[in-house]
């Protein structure tokens, strides 16, 4: 799919590129054709422009020549009228236009001149047949002034008869003065005047930069400007012969130039030279430059637009990709969440299945043994055996329920730590007292090591700390085969604050160990190393989750390292505030003394219990212990009954909490509030299925003295009552 999409994108890109190339080709062709057209028009315009300039110069020179001829005719008439023409000529003053005036009378070969003694036609060549206003003009020559000149001759007629010929010599310098001062085309044009017959250059550009051109004659001009094309030269020759104008393109020293041979006075003289085309087409060049600027601007604008479009597109594409990535991320997260939900659901299903199994198993035992009990009621040995097993199953069921409730509470954030001073040593001793027998029962070696603990008294939730340790250690016992080792190490780490003891608790075993996969989920709720239906080790699978949650609630960390068949190591780091001056009563030593169970024989209790069965069980159990009990079915009745009792009638009040009419807390407060002496002293013991610490706290707050959770454990009850009876005795 992705490959197909890429291919399509490539094809689209190629099409776009081809389209752009096509557009540019068309654009280029249009620009090219326009520029070609402009070039042609400019070329035609340049030729036209130059032609007009040359025509103008030609007209000027021809006008000078005509006026010279007219002037000469005028002089000829004056000479004709003069009494002594020779004297007239000799007396005629030279000037810069007419360098010499000479006269040869008819029938003579020698004449007179205003510049020299004698004058002959020798050295003057009229053979080319050129004329000015019908008067013969000679080939050009360098005259006595050292400058190029020409002579025009005209007849001198008197009374219709030719009496002689008047020769007037004109110098080209006079024409030069009539030409544009600065040349033309901003002195870029070179302009020679060439005598057609001799092909000598008789007038030359005078600027310094102009001196590179051939200046001697046409041959020199050809050589200097490298005009070697025979066709051009033949055409020029033909034009010279016929007195026609010629103009052609030829590069002069690598500059594109228009060269010209422009006939003046019917081709007796020619204007010769060249003009760089750029000089003629200055405005055209400007137009072309401007066109190029416009085209360049358009192209720049186009490319700018393309660039902007591209940038925009890239930005959009980036945005789209980001959105796509985000969407994919969300999808992944959703999938993960779904997966997690499915796993959770599966876990809970598994958990329920496990629970069902775990509850049904002891329940099966309870019910099964109850049936057997019924059958073997007459056999006391069997009855005792059955009741023992029923009790064990009940205990298991109870721990199961406790754990489930505990994790539920932890997860719903309702657990509150009960911080109070405690002695670490007491905790370790009590844990040791519990675990040592369990390990011993399984033939395991239990090693307890305490290293470097600086403070004995600490502040924390002793019960929860106990719970952590028992959980870890009981697990170690559970998952370590017989004959294995369990190490319980408590090490003080470096203090981060003098007010806190930083301790590390390690529980290590060389038992079954765990797989890496299981290690990843060991602290998740509702998981267990093995399915309870297949595992001989029974448990709720909540212990580790509870442990981790409590450690974190205490601000600590827990880690686990394990290798299958090698064993496991649980490491808990905790910081517990130290107690500088422990309270006297908080030594715990007194409490640590093994509590003695009271002998209930002869005691009489008031029990507030709304449940008939529970009431009956209580009565029966107390009766077994030799005590009696009076049941009130709610708090109100209990209060009233106590109020009505004689002082000392009841040894203690056993108070259920959840009851109709008046609950246990209210009842306890009411009793304590009674105006009689024993109202504040009679032990009130909460005996309730509300078995959590806060329940106990609430009970104590209500004025009760102790808390014994249901199901009723007679040993515990006896110990609790024993506490109060000893207290009473000591009083």
């Amino acid at each position: 799919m992705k490959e197909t999409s890429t291919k399509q994108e490539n094809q689209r890109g190629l099409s776009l590129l081809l389209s752009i190339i096509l557009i540019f080709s068309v654009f280029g062709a249009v620009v090219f054709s326009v520029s070609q057209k402009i070039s042609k028009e400019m070329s035609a315009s340049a030729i036209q422009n130059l032609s007009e300039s040359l025509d103008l110069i030609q007209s000027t020179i021809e006008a000078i020549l005509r006026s010279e001829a007219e002037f000469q005719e005028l002089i000829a008439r004056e000479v004709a009228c003069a009494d002594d023409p020779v004297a007239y000529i000799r007396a005629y003053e030279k000037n810069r236009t007419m360098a010499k005036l000479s006269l040869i009378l008819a029938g003579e070969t020698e004449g007179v001149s205003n510049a020299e003694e004698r004058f002959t036609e020798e050295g003057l060549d009229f053979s080319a047949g050129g004329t000015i206003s019908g008067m013969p003009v000679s080939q050009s020559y360098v005259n006595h002034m050292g400058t190029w000149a020409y002579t025009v001759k005209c007849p001198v007629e008197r009374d219709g008869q030719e009496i002689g010929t008047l020769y007037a010599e004109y110098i080209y310098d006079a024409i030069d003065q009539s030409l544009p001062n600065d040349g033309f085309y901003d002195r870029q044009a070179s302009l020679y005047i060439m005598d057609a017959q001799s092909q000598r250059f008789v007038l030359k550009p005078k600027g310094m930069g102009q001196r590179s051109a051939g200046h001697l004659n046409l041959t020199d001009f050809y050589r200097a400007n490298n005009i070697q094309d025979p066709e051009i030269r033949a055409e020029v020759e033909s034009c010279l012969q016929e007195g026609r104008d010629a103009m052609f393109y030829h590069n002069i020293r690598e500059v594109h130039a228009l060269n010209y041979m422009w006939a003046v006075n019917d081709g007796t003289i020619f204007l010769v030279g060249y003009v760089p085309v750029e000089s003629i087409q200055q405005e055209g060049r400007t137009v072309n430059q401007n066109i190029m600027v416009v085209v360049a601007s358009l192209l720049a604008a186009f490319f700018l637009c393309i660039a902007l479009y591209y940038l925009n597109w890239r930005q959009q594409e980036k945005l789209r990709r980001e959105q796509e990535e985000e969407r994919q991320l969300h999808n992944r997260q959703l999938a993960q969440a779904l997966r997690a939900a499915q796993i959770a659901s599966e876990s809970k299903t598994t958990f329920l299945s496990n629970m069902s199994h775990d509850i049904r198993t002891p329940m099966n035992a309870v019910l099964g043994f109850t049936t057997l009990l019924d059958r073997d009621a007459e056999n006391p040995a069997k009855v005792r055996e059955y009741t023992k097993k029923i009790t064990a199953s009940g205990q298991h069921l109870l721990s199961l329920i406790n754990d489930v409730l505990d994790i539920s509470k932890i997860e719903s954030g309702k657990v509150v730590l009960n911080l109070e001073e405690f002695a670490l040593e007491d905790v370790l001793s009590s844990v040791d007292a519990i675990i040592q027998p369990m390990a011993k029962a399984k033939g395991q070696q239990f090693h307890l090591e305490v290293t470097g603990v600086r403070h004995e008294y600490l502040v924390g939730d002793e019960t929860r700390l106990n719970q952590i340790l028992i959980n870890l250690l009981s697990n170690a016992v559970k998952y370590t085969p017989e004959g294995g080792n369990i190490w319980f190490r408590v090490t003080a780490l470096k203090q981060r604050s003098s007010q806190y003891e930083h301790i590390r608790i390690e529980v290590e075993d060389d038992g079954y160990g765990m797989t890496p996969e299981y290690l990843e989920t060991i602290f998740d709720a509702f998981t267990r190393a093995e399915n309870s239906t297949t595992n001989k080790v029974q448990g709720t699978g909540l212990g580790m989750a509870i442990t981790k949650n409590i450690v974190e609630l205490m601000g600590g960390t827990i880690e686990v390292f394990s290798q299958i068949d090698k064993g496991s190591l649980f490491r808990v780091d905790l910081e517990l505030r130290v107690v500088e001056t422990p309270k006297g009563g908080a030594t715990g030593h007194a409490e640590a003394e093994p509590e003695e169970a009271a002998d209930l024989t002869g005691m009489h209790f008031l029990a507030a219990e709304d449940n008939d069965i529970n009431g009956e069980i209580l009565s029966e159990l107390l009766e077994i212990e030799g005590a009696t009990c009076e049941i009130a079915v709610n708090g109100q009745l209990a209060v009233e009954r106590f109020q009505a009792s004689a002082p000392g009638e009841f040894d203690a009040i056993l108070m259920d909490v959840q009851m109709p009419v008046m609950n246990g807390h209210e009842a306890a407060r009411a009793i304590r509030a009674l105006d009689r002496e024993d109202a504040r002293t009679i032990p009130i013991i909460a005996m309730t299925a509300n078995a959590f610490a806060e329940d106990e706290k609430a009970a104590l707050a209500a004025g009760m003295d102790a808390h014994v959770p249901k199901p009723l454990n007679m040993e515990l009850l006896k110990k609790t009552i024993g506490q109060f009876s000893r207290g009473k005795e000591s009083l």
Partner: protein
Amino acid sequence: MSGMKKWIAVCLAAALLALVSCGGHEDPKNLISQDEETKRVVNLFSPMEKSDPNAENVARTAADLTIAMAEERLGVTVDYWTYTAEDYQDKTYDDVALDRARNNMDDLYLLNPDTVLALGTEGLLMDLSGLDSTKNLREIIRVANTVDGKLVAIPQEVVAYGLFVNVDLFKQYGLDLPNTPEEFLGCCRVFQENGIETPIGANRWWLETFVLAIAYADLYNGGNTQAEIAALNSGEARYSDYMRPGFEFLQTLIDNGYIDAQKALVSEAIEGEGPDFLAGKTPIVMAYWGAANTETAYGKTDFEMQVIGFPTHRGRMPVMPMTGWAVGAQAEHAEDAMRVMEVITSDEALQLFSETNRVISPSKNVKVDCVPALRPLNDRIEEGVYVLGSNAGMNVEQWGNTCLIVRQLLGGATVDECMASFDALQNAALNK
């Protein structure tokens, strides 16, 4: 997106700026400016060789640079007027220069020594001795250009003529470069025996240098120059006596076929003999100093070239005529022309000229290394051994007259006839 907005804003601002800058300023009512300065012109007449489109003419460039300097400094425009003879039948540059100067056609002229003397004698040239730049002139320059007590011309270079020899050919035939006329004849004989029929390339202008070198080697280097010149001017001594050995030597060269007299008589300088010399067919030509520097002459050869003095019994002898710039006495723009002269003969201009053209400067303050080929000639000049090709102190003009009389020899006249021409010139001078 904000970046794109910035771009668009910048583009719009640029477009607006362009529109504003294109916005019209009002045209004046009269579109032609009237405040043009009056153009000051100086007309300059100088020769110009025929053009070669691919060669650089250093000599002309050097002069142009100094003229450009003057134009820039003075705000004048120098207009060039030139003349070049198409062939030997044409009027010569000197003829035209004389005509133009006599008719007061130009302001500044570049003149050959004979023309300088002729026009100076006629009083047609301005006295330049008042220019500041003359203070730096070498004495020899001042003497050679002084006519009737007036300094009438100042050169931009000291022109020295010498023999340009193809050293490779001399080596090929085991020849040493000649010092004396006899050695020179010996070399020519060897070249001829080895198939070089005409060992000397010549034109109608410069063969006189052989004659002048032999004629005046003693006069200028014998320690009695002034007395000898005085004797000539007084008629006690005869120019023909000095000239005869040189002419006889030239006659020998012609008689032996070492020089093609007929060809030389119709050949223009360098144009006639240059191609064969450059092609290695002719081992010896004569030319002026600057020809060794410029590509239009012999500035770029495929063989080892050296420039040596002409053979005399006093050894190799450079011949130094003086060309120079002069100002017409009646020049239309005399004042500006004098200013231009001041600039182009200043030490700064002469330094520029000499550096560009690698020539000996007429200013004693300017010294430039010459190209290796010119060292033999330069060494002689530095030693003070040379012959002047022209001397305004002599009452018979030397450079132009000798040239013309050599042409007579080339045309078939005898040495005696040529000497008679000198005698006639001297007599005419004595009778003035």
